[in-house]
């Protein structure tokens, strides 16, 4: 069965702010697709357009070959949607929430147990607790359960792991893997670059534009330059120093180290070291590393800015 998504030249503005600029995107049936981008990139707007909650200014979107504007009612029967903000009834218990969403879709929990069992088992011990009193991870699991209760063909998850601890995040992705096996098309938006590797394909999105759509591996392979990690006794000063360095292509602060690319493919490591020492940095460590999705994202986003 076809549960694909086709987005054709969609644009959307809020007043003077253009949230989405002429977006084209094809998501295959049964794919676990990631929409990766920082806050304000337009992820939520794109989700709401797909969820038939917003009308595009231009262009069109088709879910399961059904137009999202003219036949939105049909789409609403097979769509599972989990908004970015926790949107269940906080004053209802876990089981009451689930029951309510089951009746809304004219179904029963028991009939869909098969679909949600793995997730349900984890929240069942808290089934009589009010949803508002659950932990962040539990809330997201419950929301996922509610979004799955009617066996949707397409699942839209808007930043499901934001504000969730890393253990719960790993569990959550494990569940998505399980759902993918059932043939559901899953689209996940996330600001966490490390989650991109868990998707089949990802789209990197920034300022309402899609920078690239590819598998995580290919995105990394396309990086095209050697990447170096540089540490010293004062990372921030080093960053400022490297920006002055004459053969620097790009340098970003990444947690405990700096990620550096040279205008040449290979960087002159000795020269770099001498330069930094002359600037008064000590304990300098330079090593080659593999680029991550985040490095690619930074690379692509600076390119697109230079373009403009």
């Amino acid at each position, binding site marked *: 069965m076809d549960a694909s998504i086709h987005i054709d030249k969609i644009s959307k503005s809020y007043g003077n702010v253009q949230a989405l600029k002429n977006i084209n995107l094809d998501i295959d049936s049964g794919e676990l697709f990631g929409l990766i981008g920082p806050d304000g990139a337009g992820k939520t707007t794109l989700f709401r357009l797909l969820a038939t909650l*917003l009308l595009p200014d231009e262009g069109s979107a088709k879910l399961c070959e059904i137009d999202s504007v003219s036949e*939105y009612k049909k789409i609403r029967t097979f769509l599972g949607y989990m908004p970015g903000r926790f949107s*269940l*009834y906080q004053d*209802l218990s876990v089981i009451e929430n689930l029951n309510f969403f089951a009746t809304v879709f004219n179904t029963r929990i028991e009939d869909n147990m098969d679909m949600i069992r793995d997730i349900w088992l984890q929240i069942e011990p808290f089934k009589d607790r009010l949803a508002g009193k659950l932990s962040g991870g539990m809330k997201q699991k419950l929301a996922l359960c509610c979004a799955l209760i009617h066996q949707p063909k397409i699942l839209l998850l808007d930043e499901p792991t934001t504000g969730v601890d890393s253990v719960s995040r790993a569990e959550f992705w494990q569940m998505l893997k399980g759902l993918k096996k059932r043939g559901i098309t899953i689209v996940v938006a996330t600001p966490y670059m490390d989650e991109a590797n868990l998707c089949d394909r990802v789209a990197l999105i920034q300022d309402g534009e899609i920078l690239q759509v590819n598998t995580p591996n290919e995105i990394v392979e396309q990086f095209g330059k050697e990447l170096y990690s540089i540490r010293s006794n004062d990372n921030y000063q080093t960053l400022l120093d490297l920006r002055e360095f004459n053969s620097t292509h790009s340098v970003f602060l990444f947690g405990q180290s700096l990620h550096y690319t040279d205008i040449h493919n290979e960087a002159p490591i000795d020269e770099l070291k001498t330069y930094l020492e002359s600037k008064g940095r000590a304990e300098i460590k330079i090593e080659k590393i593999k680029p991550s999705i985040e490095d690619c994202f930074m690379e692509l986003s600076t390119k697109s800015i230079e373009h403009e």
Partner: protein
Amino acid sequence: MNRFIGFLKKEFYHIFRDKRSMLILFGMPIVQILLFGYVISTDLKDVKMAVLDHSKDEYSAEIINKITSSGYFNLTDNLKSLEEADAIFRKGDVKLILVFEPDFGKNLIKNTTANIQILTDATDPNMANLEVNYLQGILQNYNVEINRGKKVPFAIQPKTRMYFNSNLESVFMFIPGIMATILMLVSAMMTSISIAREKEMGTMEILLVSPLNPLQIILGKVTPYLALSFINALVIVGMGYFIFGVPILGSFTLLMAETILFIFLALSLGIFISTISKNQEVAMMLSMFALMLPTIILSGFIFPIRNMPLPLQIFSHIIPPKWFIIILKNIMLKGVGIEYVWKETLILIVMTIGFIGLSLKKFKTRLE
């Protein structure tokens, strides 16, 4: 159908788990009735009165006796001179001083006229007026009594009878007003807040993405409040009848039918408000200013409409509770049937249809 019941269940959970809603739903009507019935009363009862009796004869004593036994006045102080009057008014308890002239009784018999002076504390002018009127009534009665059997030439004695509320009980006035206020509050304000809450909490987003259509969402939201409002109406009428003796002279069925009509109107107003407000605060403020204030002030509940400036009188026509209060008074106190209130009923029906139409049109199936 299952969907609808599921939705209703959810709504009742919301209502019963929220202490604030419960208080507004069930505490408010009872407190309001008791407040208006007992405390905010415009009836005269036990007004503290002082007497300055320069005469101290049997006639003055008898008059004082008549006045205090009426139940409207309470004699608390006997003054010795007029100089004390100012001081005693300033203290604030005594609202009225009765002054008998010297030789009151003698003058009455010899000259056939004797003078009594009534001094009132007019910081509350309406009450002062009322007190003077009541007192004059009592004196008039006494006048008639002592002249019994004698021919009093050319005396015109007006005999008044207060129709529909012969004791001028203000609670008769308030019960219809409270009905309108409470039903407005429960139906319009609570529904508008409850729909606005779904928007604020983001749950509306999920409801919209579900296969529920706008009518199902609205019906699910409205039905619990329809039921609760109706219970409230019964409680108010019941308390009025059993505690304050407010009669229901007309048809009870008609009364309830009109009440349900008004509840529908209030609910449609509530939905309309919720469609134009983004969050609970806005819905609350809109209900307060657009519904509650006009209901209390401009509907004729507390202030008579004919005493208002002309622009406000015209404005009062578009205030639904005004018509409802007229209907209620007619049915409860005058005991008339539909043939006397069909015009008002028609106005309410037209308003209801108008607001339902407007809100269905304004209710969005999307977020914008």
